[in-house]
């Protein structure tokens, strides 16, 4: 499916234009307040090395899209600075726009136009013309498996096809930095797996720096070399998924109580156990960490039973990103994701 010559030429282009000594993306103390006093970003900072896949992981309303909007020059921060591809997003917006590709959380495909027309217009906007444009469009259509449907109006595309067209449109001008805001939200598992492969391939074979936002822990874990966990407009933890997880020693214990009213009683009796660390309670679920989960669980259960607290279920697991989030944000990711405002 991949044209080897074009890939080589792409690699050549991107290696000659990228500046390895500078981070590809740098956000410093971004603050953004929306009308009605919503503080979407609260001194958010991070940096992304060139050629890496960087994940911004956060629940609904964490500020991921706001960050992407600022970095892609759509929106302006109230304060703070950001550089993309070595260029200031405020002072050099026009040049930033040439250097980046953006796949927004919303599709961005014109549903009344065909796939080919969408891609062609996108290419023209970036200054591609004539046979060069034609070739690039045909190449992308083929690579994203859209050549059969190329001349159909995109209204008739499936969700996965539309998302692939979105990505193709973001790539038409060979950007050096690619922003993808929740690229797999709403896709079925198969389409999601395909998209993951494509994203990994873009970074590996074309040397594109990719900033990806997601609220799928698994996606961040699988794709991102480094990630920043965002909560309420701030970066609460940053590192590789492995680093973040290994900072949490031992096992994670989740205990779901039969009755939410018992939560504070359970918390007080369990906090006296020295085997348990970092005890957090979120409505009726208790989270704790232990060096050896298997031996600690019976002790904890016995303690709860003698206090008259009924337990509905217990799980012991290696730390996941969910636990990392819990540790830094003080609430469970899933709860935050449901409770967050859109």
């Amino acid at each position, binding site marked *: 499916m991949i044209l080897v010559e074009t890939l080589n030429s792409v690699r050549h282009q991107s290696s000659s234009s990228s500046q390895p000594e500078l981070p590809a993306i740098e956000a410093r103390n971004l603050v953004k307040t929306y009308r009605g006093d919503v503080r979407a970003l609260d001194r958010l900072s991070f940096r992304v090395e060139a050629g890496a896949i960087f994940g911004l992981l956060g629940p609904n309303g964490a500020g991921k899209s706001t960050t992407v909007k600022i970095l892609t020059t759509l929106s302006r921060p109230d304060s703070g600075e950001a550089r993309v591809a070595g260029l200031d997003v405020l002072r050099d917006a026009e040049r930033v726009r040439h250097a980046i590709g953006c796949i927004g959380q*919303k*599709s961005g495909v014109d549903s009344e136009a065909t796939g080919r027309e969408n891609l062609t217009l996108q290419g023209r906007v970036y200054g591609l013309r004539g046979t060069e444009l034609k070739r690039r469009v045909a190449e992308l259509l083929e690579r994203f498996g859209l050549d059969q449907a190329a001349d159909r109006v995109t209204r008739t595309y499936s969700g996965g096809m539309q998302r692939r067209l979105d990505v193709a449109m973001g790539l038409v001008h060979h950007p050096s930095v690619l922003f993808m805001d929740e690229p797999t939200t709403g896709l079925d598992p198969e389409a999601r797996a395909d998209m993951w492969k494509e994203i990994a391939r873009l970074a590996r074979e074309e040397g594109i720096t990719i900033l990806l936002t997601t609220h799928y822990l698994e996606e961040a874990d699988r794709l991102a070399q480094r990630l920043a966990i965002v909560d309420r407009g701030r970066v609460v933890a940053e590192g590789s998924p492995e680093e973040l997880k290994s900072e949490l020693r031992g096992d994670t214990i989740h205990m779901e109580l039969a009755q939410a009213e018992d939560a504070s009683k359970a918390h007080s009796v369990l906090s006296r156990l020295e085997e348990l660390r970092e005890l957090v309670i979120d409505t009726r679920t208790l989270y704790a960490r232990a060096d050896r989960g298997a031996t600690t669980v019976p002790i904890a259960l016995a303690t709860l039973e003698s206090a008259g607290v009924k337990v509905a279920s217990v799980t012991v697991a290696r730390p996941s990103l969910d636990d990392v989030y819990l540790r830094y944000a003080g609430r469970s990711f899933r709860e935050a994701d449901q409770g967050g405002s859109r």
Partner: protein
Amino acid sequence: MRTLAHSFYMTLRHFRNLMRQPLYIAFTLVQPIIWLVLFGQLFKKVVLLPGFGASAYVDFLTPGVVIMTVLFGAGWSGMGIIRDLDLGVMDRFLVSPVSRVALIAGRLIQLALIAVIQSVLIVALGMILGARFPGGARGVGLLILCAVLLAVPIGALSSAMALVARKEETVIAASNFILLPLTFLSSVFMAQNLMPGWIQAVARFNPVEWAVVAGRSALSAHMNWPLVATRIGLLVALTIITAGLATRAFRIYQRSV
């Protein structure tokens, strides 16, 4: 140069999408047909009123219906912007190096083309219904120019409003609120000197009135050159101002996202 090229591509985009739904233009002609036939019959005798000044009502009505049709078409053009906002198409363009002017210009050029097509068809329809225009081809050409010069600023305003309000309901409400009064506070249906004094006074500031008066004069046997020229001048000025406003509206939009 870049702005010109981008405007061309954007016009192409809108026109192509329009061509995909040829019924759209047909639909926009249903109402004018009703106006022409119904009002033409209903108010046939109105020309007998002393001082009306036209020999047949359909002669008088046709340019009015041209202007009104174009006005309503233009007034709804903000809906296209809303659609692009909802689809995410607008945001995608705004993070690309596309010229902001082209994003508006493409729409306005398409609107102008639609206005020309509609005007020609309605004039033809009027003639089928018996209208006669002593002003001839030049007169019809000037009427079409007036129609375009009304469509473009109204379309620009509608687009600007869509960018600022970002909500379909607001655009619908505002269009309803503005378009009908603009029509009835003008001589689209009724001769100027038969309108109540206060309406005449208000109509002097109404761009719909500028367009309809100039267009009608151009179609008459003795065109009032100074009148036509000043009204066209006013419409051109309005076009420039509103196009500027619409381009600026992108900044307001981007501040709110």
